[in-house]
C-alpha cells in the first residue's frame, strides 16, 4: 500500500529533487517528517519496483546516439527474438505493440558507428531486418509525470 508520504515522494520529486549535501533531509524538512522516514519510504518504493531510479534525465542525443527500431516478427518467434534483443546492454526498451510491426526497441550507443554495429549484429543474430527510426527533433519538455494515485 502506498502511504501519503510515498505518494508525495512519487509526485513531487520527479523534477526538482534537491541537489544539495543532504537531499533526503531537505525533503524531510519540506514535508515535516524525519530524514529516516524519507530514506525508508524511498527504499520501499525501490524494493517494490515502483521507481526505476532517482537521477538525472538527459535529453537524447546530447551524449551518445540512439534510435528507435521496429521489426515484424511472427508471433511464435516473438519471445525468442525479443529475448535475444533484450540481452544486448545497448537496448534499453523492448516492447511488443499491436501492429504488423510488432516489436519496438531503443538502442543507445556511444556514437553512430557503435549504433550501426549493434543494429547490424541484431539483424544478423535474429535474421530479421529492422526499420530504423532515429530521432530528428525532440519537442518534449519533460516535467515528470503527474500520477493519480488516489484510486489504488
Amino acid at each position, binding site marked *: 500500500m502506498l502511504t501519503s508520504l510515498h505518494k508525495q515522494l512519487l509526485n513531487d520529486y520527479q523534477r*526538482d529533487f534537491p541537489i544539495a549535501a543532504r537531499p533526503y533531509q531537505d525533503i524531510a524538512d519540506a514535508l515535516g517528517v524525519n530524514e529516516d522516514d524519507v530514506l525508508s519510504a524511498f527504499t520501499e518504493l525501490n524494493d517494490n519496483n515502483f521507481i526505476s531510479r532517482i537521477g538525472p534525465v538527459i535529453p537524447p542525443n546530447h551524449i551518445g546516439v540512439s534510435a528507435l527500431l521496429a521489426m515484424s516478427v511472427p508471433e511464435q518467434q516473438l519471445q525468442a527474438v525479443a529475448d535475444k534483443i533484450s540481452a544486448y546492454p545497448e537496448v534499453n526498451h523492448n*516492447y511488443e505493440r499491436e501492429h504488423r510491426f510488432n516489436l519496438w526497441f531503443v538502442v543507445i550507443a556511444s556514437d553512430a558507428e557503435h549504433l550501426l554495429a549493434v543494429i547490424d549484429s541484431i539483424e544478423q543474430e535474429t535474421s530479421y531486418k529492422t526499420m530504423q527510426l532515429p530521432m530528428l527533433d525532440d519537442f518534449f519538455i519533460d516535467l515528470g509525470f503527474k500520477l493519480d494515485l488516489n484510486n489504488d
Partner: protein
Amino acid sequence: MIDARDRQLLEHIQFGLPICASPYAEIGRLCDMPEAEVIERLTRLKQQGLIKRMGVIVKHRQLGYRANAMIVWNVPDSLVKQLGGHISRFSFVTLCYQRPRQPEWPYNLYCMIHGKDRATVLAQLEQLVDACGLNGFDKEALFSLRCFKQRGAIYQNPTPALADG
C-alpha cells in the same frame, strides 16, 4: 557544454542516486570527485538544460498505468515543429519526437500516452486531436502488449547517456 569530468560524473550517476544520507558524496567517491564538485556540476548541467530534470523516475506499469500507446502521425514537414510543440504541452503526453519517414512507414510525428486503461488513453488521444487540429492527418495508435525490457537509458562505455530514445 559537457566536459570530460561531467561525462565521468554522469556515467556514475546514471544508475541512480544511492538512498543514503549523503548520496552525492557517495557518487563522488565512485568517480573520485569531491562532494562539492558533484553538486556544483549537477547544478550547472541542470541550469543549462543538459539535465532535463533531476528526480524520481517512476515505473508507470507498476503504479497502475498499464495502457500505453505510441501514436504516430503523418503531418506535413512544415507543420511538425508547431504541432509537436502543441502536443507536448498535454500532461498525459510522456514523449514527443520527430522521426524520419521510411518506405513502409509514412509517419513523422510521434507521441506517447500513458493511462490507466485503454479507454482513457483513447479519450485523451481524441482530446489531443481536437485541441491540436490533427483531424485531417493519418495516424495510428500502437498499444503496448508485452514489455520485454524497460530501464532508464544507460550508456555503455565509454559514454554515458540517457533519455528514452
